[in-house]
């Protein structure tokens, strides 16, 4: 019987029939579709069209019959599973502390756990080599402390290193998701259970834990998804064919064996698994959303809660651990970039040598360090263009999605999120195939990199913009229209200004993702195209760790600035 308040967005509203949103929304959908579907089409063609230009299943069959394929898939799933379990186990105590207590350093843990979100994978790799390597900082420290002859930690280029790096990268996701949910669990059920005579542990087992399962499942699926398509970490830290995953194998076949058909066929397998995982993820998200009403956290409840000695020790351990675990590798990179051996005895001192080499003020022959300045510039241009284009697409698409309700809108939204179901290596492969076909000019090949980046970052940018766009009350738009502004003017003068901070955050996020992008760029680009992450990768490969650290420090600085800007925007301090 009731008409919904602000029912303007329902059937028959002029916003829904407004040609403006259709005109701006539709091309962005089509272009995004084109940018995403065309490379996929090229991959499908490579996988299913034979030499005689007819449809063939022989390549796929060949691959399916090869036990090597299944061994790789098994290992990929296995490493993702172990990584997920370890990440969740590391996150759980932290989530417990964050959700139930206020303590000194709580903000620090929260801040630390944001870092990996904006950290390019190549920096994680570099940080691990520098910090946990056999002659890494941690080993040096331990050897000096305990007067050891041999480095006690020998995890680099082993399975352990891969798992540790994945945990480093992903435990913050679990920490954030689970602690936020835990914090918002209504406490009255616990109170009720307590009045019914349940003890603390019983309450946890029977009341809290069952309700935490949906967010744990959701976080696990997301982490599994990320670890399944993890690339740089396995490529470098895995260090060999023993630890090859699907993504690494696709890259190896495409770029080293030049077996593009094989790479394309393998991609199909990866896409199928990814789509299943994304489906499971969406399902777990619904579980979380539907589970129960959440209540605004009552900070007083947290403050009043007494901390036992055990909890205090736990807090201290967790603080120390997470600082060392996350900040150690990052600090290691910065430290190494400013130091060089000054004596044969291994003593080190402060130096700017690596930076000078990077920017050509002291020439080193036959090193790629000299091209750092141009790589930096290229990375900036690519990241700027890609995040700008991605932002424009996402904003226009959001403006359309906001005014559209129902099944059509949902499918459009899911469609726009599709690139998330395809790994960046595969997008890189698709663009490589396009590049081979087009044989583009110097500028053209760079444009292809930008387009690949647009596809990769757009879902994330859209995820940042769309919810904020939907939060804008329709009455603002309606008020503007009645005040004499047409739909286009309303978009410019009301909707965009209201989105300001979301747009800045989304741009910053896209920029950070693009400037740190290695997977697609490495798969797609020829050797003349050098971006910041690619140089770092090559420097690691040629054991020039100091140079890699200097560049890595610059990349850390860029990410920090981007993160800072987006935080300011979120607090509304950028006017």
């Amino acid at each position, binding site marked *: 019987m009731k008409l919904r308040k602000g029912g303007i967005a329902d059937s028959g509203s002029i916003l829904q*029939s407004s040609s403006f949103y259709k005109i701006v929304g539709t091309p962005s959908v089509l272009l995004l579709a084109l940018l995403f579907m065309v490379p996929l089409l090229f991959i499908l063609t490579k996988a299913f069209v034979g030499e005689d230009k007819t449809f063939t299943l022989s390549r796929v069959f060949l691959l399916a019959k090869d036990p090597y394929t299944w061994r790789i898939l098994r290992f990929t799933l296995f490493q993702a599973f172990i990584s997920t379990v370890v990440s969740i186990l590391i996150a759980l105590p932290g989530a417990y502390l964050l959700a139930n207590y206020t303590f000194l350093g709580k903000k620090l843990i929260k801040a630390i756990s944001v870092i990996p979100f904006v950290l390019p994978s190549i920096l994680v790799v570099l940080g691990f080599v520098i910090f946990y390597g056999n002659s890494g900082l941690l080993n040096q420290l331990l050897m000096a402390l305990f007067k050891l002859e041999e480095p006690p930690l020998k995890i680099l280029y082993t399975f352990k290193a891969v798992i540790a790096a994945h945990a480093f990268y992903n435990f913050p996701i679990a920490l954030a998701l689970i602690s936020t949910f835990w914090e918002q669990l209504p406490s009255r059920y616990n109170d009720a259970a307590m009045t019914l005579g349940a003890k603390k542990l019983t309450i946890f087992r029977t009341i809290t834990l069952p309700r935490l399962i949906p967010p744990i499942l959701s976080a696990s699926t997301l982490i599994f998804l990320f670890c399944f398509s993890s690339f740089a970490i396995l490529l470098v830290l895995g260090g060999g064919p023993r630890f090859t995953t699907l993504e690494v194998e696709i890259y190896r076949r495409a770029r080293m064996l030049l077996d593009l058909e094989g790479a394309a066929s393998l991609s199909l397998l990866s896409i199928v698994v990814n789509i299943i995982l994304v489906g499971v993820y969406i399902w777990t998200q619904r579980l979380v959303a539907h589970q129960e009403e959440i209540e605004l956290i009552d900070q007083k409840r947290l403050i009043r809660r007494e901390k036992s000695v055990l909890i205090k020790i736990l807090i201290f351990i967790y603080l120390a651990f997470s600082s060392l675990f996350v900040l150690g590798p990052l600090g290691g990179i910065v430290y190494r970039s400013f130091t060089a051996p000054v004596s044969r005895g291994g003593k080190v001192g402060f130096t700017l040598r690596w930076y000078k080499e990077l920017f050509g003020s002291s020439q080193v022959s036959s090193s790629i360090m000299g091209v750092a300045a141009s790589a930096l510039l290229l990375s900036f241009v690519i990241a700027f263009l890609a995040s700008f284009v991605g932002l424009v697409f996402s904003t226009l698409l959001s403006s359309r999605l906001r005014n559209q309700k129902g099944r059509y809108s949902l499918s459009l939204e899911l469609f726009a999120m599709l690139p998330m179901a395809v790994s960046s290596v595969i997008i890189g492969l698709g663009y490589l195939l396009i590049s081979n076909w087009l044989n583009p000019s110097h500028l053209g090949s760079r444009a292809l990199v930008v387009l690949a980046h647009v596809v990769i970052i757009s879902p994330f940018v859209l995820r940042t913009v769309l919810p904020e766009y939907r939060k804008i*009350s329709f*009455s603002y738009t309606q008020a503007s*229209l*009645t005040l*004499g502004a047409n739909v286009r003017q309303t978009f410019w003068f009301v909707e965009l200004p209201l989105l300001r901070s979301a747009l800045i955050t989304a741009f910053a996020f896209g920029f950070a993702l693009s400037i740190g992008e290695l997977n697609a760029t490495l798969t797609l680009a020829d050797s003349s195209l050098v971006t910041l992450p690619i140089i770092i990768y090559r420097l690691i490969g040629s054991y020039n760790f100091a140079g890699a650290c200097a560049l890595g420090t610059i990349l850390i600085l860029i990410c920090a600035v981007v993160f800072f800007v987006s935080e300011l925007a979120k607090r509304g301090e950028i006017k």
Partner: protein
Amino acid sequence: MGLICSNIEVNYPEFTLKLDLKVEKGELVSIVGPSGCGKSTSLQLITGLIPCTKGSITLNGQLINDKPVWERNIGMVFQDYALFPHLNVEKNIAYSLRFKKLSKKERKEKVKQMLALVGLQGYEKRKIGLLSGGERQRVALARALASEPQLLLLDEPLSALDAKMRKHLRQEIKKIHSATGITTLYVTHDQEEALTISDRIVVMEEGKMVQFDTAEEIYTNPATLFAAQFMGEGTLLPSSMIEKALVINENKRPDFLAKESYDIFFRPEDVVLQTNFSLPMAEYKNHLLFEDVKIVAQEYQGGRYLLRCEWNSYPLLAYSSSKIETDNINLSIRLEDIKIYR
């Protein structure tokens, strides 16, 4: 002249909205009805936020059906005010002026004038977020009036405010309406608000206009039982109960008594009380006499009591100027004060 909506029809899954309405120039007309009856939708149709496919809307002699929202020059105040949070008070009020190509000086002058009209002089640079509810309401009104619209629409403009502020601001709105002389449509679910503020009132039920008349006429002669009950309190009895209370003092029996199955309705202020049972009821016209009625509750309403009574398990309502000390009472109502509904 004024606003004419003729034969407008919009179909919704729940009901069909039908609008046939003529508002004189300078008149203040309220639309009242329960939430979801289609009153806000009516406003959105008139502004053009919802397209009008059947019927016509004429404003001051001009057909505006096919004009887009932004060309209609209709001011609207929204329930949540919809003041743009990214603009200050001045820029909010001047928002419509920039599309009218007014110079900066003219805009400043107009904003000043508008703020004076709503009694918020000197508020130009204030931020929207720092205004109180009442101040927001005034700024929203000033913004809607700044472009000198031909019609002002107010969509439940006072519903977000507390009772005291509501009463104060509705007088303000009435004053501003008299000062500007702008044709105004006022949507509210509060019948008291409608009764005090309007020249005429539209009562709406499930998308249909039940009655369109002056406040007094609607209160005293409601066209339907729904209108009667919506506009104020009263007693509802089925015709089958009439014979039990009927007292004929005049020669002629009223015609309606001959009809079959209908409902009767009367307001509590028309009911006469008798507390002293030893005296006869001082009523010499035809009336209904409810004897030995049980008082269920007495609600003090400031200055009078509303008596909730029970008679043959039907509720009866009456007013009393003082608290009744007995448990039972006699009530009477003249037949001429009774409304008949089928």
